[in-house]
């Protein structure tokens, strides 16, 4: 596990980010840095505003105030498509697979970004995309399901398909919303190996997770959220052993 402290400039940085929905504070003056090459996990009770932060970063939501920067450049005014083009890939808690398409098409389609009836690069590029899709399906163990519709997969396979769609992009920042929940131990190990393997290739990851064993096992850093605010951020052990945070997480209100 990497040492928190001697860090270079953060890949993503949120400064004083606020978002309200009517009377509900979804993001309360959030400051958060994602250091490069690390897994930062967002922890907190339901409704703490974890997914909202993802939505604010990718432009699904606009912050009321504050600054969000990707490698020093502002992400304000972005939309999901533009943030994808800038190298942010995201998975969803409810997966949002292309359900009627095949497993292979799900992975292939995320590489085809041109809106025109053809993609740049011609046949060679098309072949390269297909090969890459098959390679990623082999990595996540879905080769046998290649031509099945996404909707016909079991839960764990769907989770790995969701991960495959991220793996196949060249994104450098991954936002994963509960990617490991519901996986059995063997699948979970496979998931961790796949994800960790990409960190050394320059990928930075922020993920949301509820299972504290998983959180402890996978995180380089933890940010603890409650009611839209980041209450603490730092090394996993320090956060997880904080009795005040534990009390909030397990139901005692602050």
């Amino acid at each position: 596990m990497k040492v928190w402290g001697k860090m270079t400039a953060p890949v993503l940085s949120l400064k004083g980010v606020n978002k309200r929905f009517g009377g509900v504070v979804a993001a309360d003056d959030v400051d958060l840095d994602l250091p490069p090459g690390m897994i930062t996990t967002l922890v907190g009770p339901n409704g703490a505003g974890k997914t909202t932060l993802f939505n604010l970063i990718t432009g699904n939501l606009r912050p009321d105030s504050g600054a969000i920067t990707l490698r020093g450049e502002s992400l304000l005014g972005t939309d999901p498509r533009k943030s994808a083009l800038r190298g942010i890939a995201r998975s969803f808690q409810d997966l949002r697979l292309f359900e009627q398409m095949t497993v292979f098409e799900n992975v292939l389609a995320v590489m085809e970004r041109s809106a025109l009836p053809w993609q740049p690069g011609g046949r060679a590029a098309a072949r390269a995309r297909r090969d890459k899709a098959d390679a990623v399906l082999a990595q996540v163990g879905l080769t046998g399901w290649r031509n099945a519709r996404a909707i016909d997969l079991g839960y764990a396979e769907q989770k790995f398909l969701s991960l495959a769609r991220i793996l196949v992009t060249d994104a450098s920042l991954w936002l994963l919303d509960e990617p490991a929940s519901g996986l059995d131990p063997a699948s979970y190990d496979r998931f961790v190996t796949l994800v960790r393997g990409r960190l050394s290739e320059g990928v930075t990851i922020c993920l949301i997770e509820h299972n504290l064993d998983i959180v402890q096992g996978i995180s380089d850093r933890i940010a603890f959220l409650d009611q839209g605010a980041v209450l603490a951020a730092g090394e996993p052990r320090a956060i997880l052993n904080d009795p005040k945070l534990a009390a909030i997480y397990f139901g005692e209100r602050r």
Partner: protein
Amino acid sequence: MQGYILNLLILVSISGILAASLNFIIGYAGIYSMAHAAFFGVAAYAGALIALHLSPSLLVAIPVAMALCAALSLVISLPSLRVRGEYFVVASLGLQMIAFTVFSEWKDVTGGIGGLTGVPIATLFGFQLRTLESMFAVSLSCLALTAFVIYALVHTSFGRSLKAIRDNEVAAASFGKNPIVIKTIAVAISTAFCGVAGVLYAFHISFVNPESFTVDQSVFIMSMIIIGGTGTVLGPILGALIIHLLPAGLTYLTFLPARDLASLQQIIYGAAMVLLMIYRPSGLIGRANVKDTWSR
């Protein structure tokens, strides 16, 4: 007798083009348009006017009608595809209503309720399509070409983008796709093929009037797709065949009282639709069987 069948087959071909082109956006993009008959009408009037005043050549009328329909489609696509799918349904219904009003009221150009008559015989490469056989050959070729282009398109990256947007627009956008542009292009392609059907229709019937381009016609085209199978290439064509042959077939059942044939036809249509939706919810050629569709 042979004329009757050829006439029917030409109409099936034209309807097949309409159904296949509408299916391109309904089945593959999840865009429900109620304005297909309006575009059909625009193309038919354009074709008739070009034939009456400019040239009876299909090679003039068809490209112009295709371009006109594609351009007109932007009028509903641009404002409504930015927002949720329901808005497109409403916007297209609005366009359908406006189009019908224009067809029947813009008397100087459309001839009003009476329509435009005396559309000359179509020509192709200088040959006059005088016989029903030649008209059928051209219509069938156009249908084959339409089906082929749509088949090819849905198997390219563009088709995958459409299906991805249909299945989950939020996910498609967050992987870098531009749903608005992709859907706008899809609607333009669909309506352009609708334009082919309109021109063929104008020449075949040799007159156009507003009655052929009502919202009922839009629903009629949609039912062909649903019966045949949305999201399949052959389904809509099969649907067009069935919808046209069913009433024709009924007239052969001599034991049915001729007086009640029309209402009987409606009942059979209705019953067939209900049975189909129970036993083949994705149409006759639809991919999923009942169990797959209902288990989720």
